[in-house]
């Protein structure tokens, strides 16, 4: 029984990583109705910027803030320059665009910061949290930040004018435009916010998995799995989905024989497919009704 509780705790700790990433995935899905395959690479790039700033002697939280602003602006710029012209294009073109972006950013961060593994500092320290060997203070901090982020997003969407406008633009673009909402800028704003959240995820994840240009690939797949499990339309669901995926991964690793580190990605794959087949809207998502 102790093993079981311990594994669940460890699962929550890793789940925090996925929850963070899933939150970013859901944000952009809300804004543009597409899954951004380059999201992980964008987050990695932001994290590298933070790393560079810290190397130059900027204090951690300063670097954190600068990176956040940089990512927000960067996300908006990418949308304005590259993806706005594709807004009306078929899905295929958009997917191709995301893949191109993925290749460009991945290759750039490899070129600028090379492929050696880098240590990334944590603001929370890495001593055991509350005497438990399974959760470090950093992981506890990560869970905290994720929950705060979720709360902030909830308030933003619920109680601010811009949040309301963004929701309107996402669910009924035509009507939103009629009541005077600039839907095109709402999409850009969505990109900016998603990129900023992605950069937070990147900076929180980097101390755990170490910083290198490909660090996000596995995490992104898990983030997708978490987002799909929680429902792509629900930020709250994404966070819960993240924790569930983390717990599931740990339990499967402990109790099913032959499932070790090497089967991590196949588990995510199986999870994604199972959820999509059994409950396509996810646990907390709204079902989508097709108009005939």
């Amino acid at each position, binding site marked *: 029984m102790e093993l079981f509780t311990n594994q669940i705790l460890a699962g929550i700790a890793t789940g925090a990583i996925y929850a963070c990433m899933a939150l970013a995935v859901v944000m952009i899905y809300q804004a543009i*109705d*597409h*899954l951004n*395959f380059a999201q992980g690479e964008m987050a990695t790039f932001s994290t590298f910027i933070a790393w560079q700033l810290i190397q130059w002697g900027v204090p951690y939280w300063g670097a954190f803030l600068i990176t956040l602003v940089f990512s927000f602006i960067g996300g908006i710029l990418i949308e304005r320059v*590259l993806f706005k*012209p*594709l807004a009306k*294009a*078929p*899905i*295929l*073109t958009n*997917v*191709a*665009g995301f*893949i*191109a*972006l*993925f*290749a*460009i950013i*991945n*290759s*750039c961060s*490899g*070129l600028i910061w090379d492929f050696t593994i880098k240590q990334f500092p944590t603001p929370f320290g890495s001593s055991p949290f509350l005497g438990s060997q399974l959760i470090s203070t950093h992981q506890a901090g990560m869970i905290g930040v994720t929950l705060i982020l979720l709360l902030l997003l909830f308030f933003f*969407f*619920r109680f601010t004018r811009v949040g309301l406008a963004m*929701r309107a633009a996402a*669910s009924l673009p035509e009507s939103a435009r009629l009541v005077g909402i600039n839907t095109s800028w709402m999409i850009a704003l969505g990109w900016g916010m998603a990129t900023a959240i992605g950069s937070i995820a990147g900076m929180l994840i980097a101390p755990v998995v170490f910083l290198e240009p490909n660090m996000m*690939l*596995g995490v992104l*797949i898990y983030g*997708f*799995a978490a987002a*799909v499990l929680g429902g792509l*339309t629900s930020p709250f669901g994404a966070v819960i989905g993240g924790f569930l995926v983390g717990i599931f991964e740990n339990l499967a690793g402990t109790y099913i024989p*032959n499932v070790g580190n*090497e*089967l*991590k*990605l*196949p588990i*995510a*794959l199986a999870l*994604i*497919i199972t959820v*999509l*087949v059994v409950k*396509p809207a996810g646990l907390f998502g*709204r*079902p*989508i*009704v*097709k*108009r*005939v």
Partner: protein
Amino acid sequence: MSAVQEVVTEAPALDAVPKKAMTLGYGTSLVILALLIIVPLFVKNFIIFQLTMLLIYALAVLALNILTGGSGQFSLGQSAFYAVGAYTTAILMEHADINYALTLPIAGIICFVFGFLFGQPALRLSGVYLALATFALATAMPQLLKLGVFEHWTGGVQGLVVTKPDSPIAALFGHKISQDMWLYYFTLAISIAIYIFSVNLLRSRSGRAFMAIRDNEIAASAMGIDVALYKTLAFGVSAGITGVAGGLGAIAVQFVAPDSYTITFAISLFLGMVVGGVGWLPGSIVGSAFIIFVPNIAEGISKGLSGAVFGVLLFLVIYLVPHGARQVAMVAQHLIGKLKKN
């Protein structure tokens, strides 16, 4: 958050492709065929090997084209089917001592079944969701191949070495026909057969059903088309052809290893399709040339930035020639027509 249920009119996955535009005329086809037959007689073995790979990748791109251009479904997971085909051939050749030519249909059938089964969940998915599921399949495949359980057959991380087949007609012509050249013509024959099969498939009842589903799923089902069957069938056919390509690839490269079949490869194939023109079968060979030769050129421009050069080129294609090589070909045809009139 909102009580209103979301109502979505789904955007088409891609622009409709007119049926006639999916193939080439007889004259052009014959010229290309003649070139493909004659050129290898005059070049070095390494170039023959590259041409063989060109044909093999063209087959894989063609398979994706049938799936996406034909039935309107996405796949970022073609590398997984290619890997299954390659491993089937390698294992049958090395462990069961089966003749290489016989392993190919087996690889094709196994991949067809695998694709058909994978198509089952794919039925429920459309657009981004399908891209996502296949993306996950492609990333998971190398890890599955490395599994300790299968190590006896797959060789684990090390992979398997495949013996290169000897040319059976070498004795007839002295030593003029090298192994590479034999393999090239063998691949060419199979490619032509598959190309003709694909063209006919798309012209057949099934092909029309694919296209009807691509253009409007709801209308197609109202016309009595079994949407579920044809969608999985498209997946199966596409996977089967990719499997044959994978098998040929294993024989040509003489080596299979899990890390040759990563998501990068799947992305290359996808890229090849976009560059060649979605839904235009002859474009497959243009796309294949792009994914074989452009990375070399990109590396020539800048070693570290090859990915970026690749990405930028892709963006250029999306913006400037959204229909890929097909658009270029059509413009060329138009110009030639004008010249003829004058």
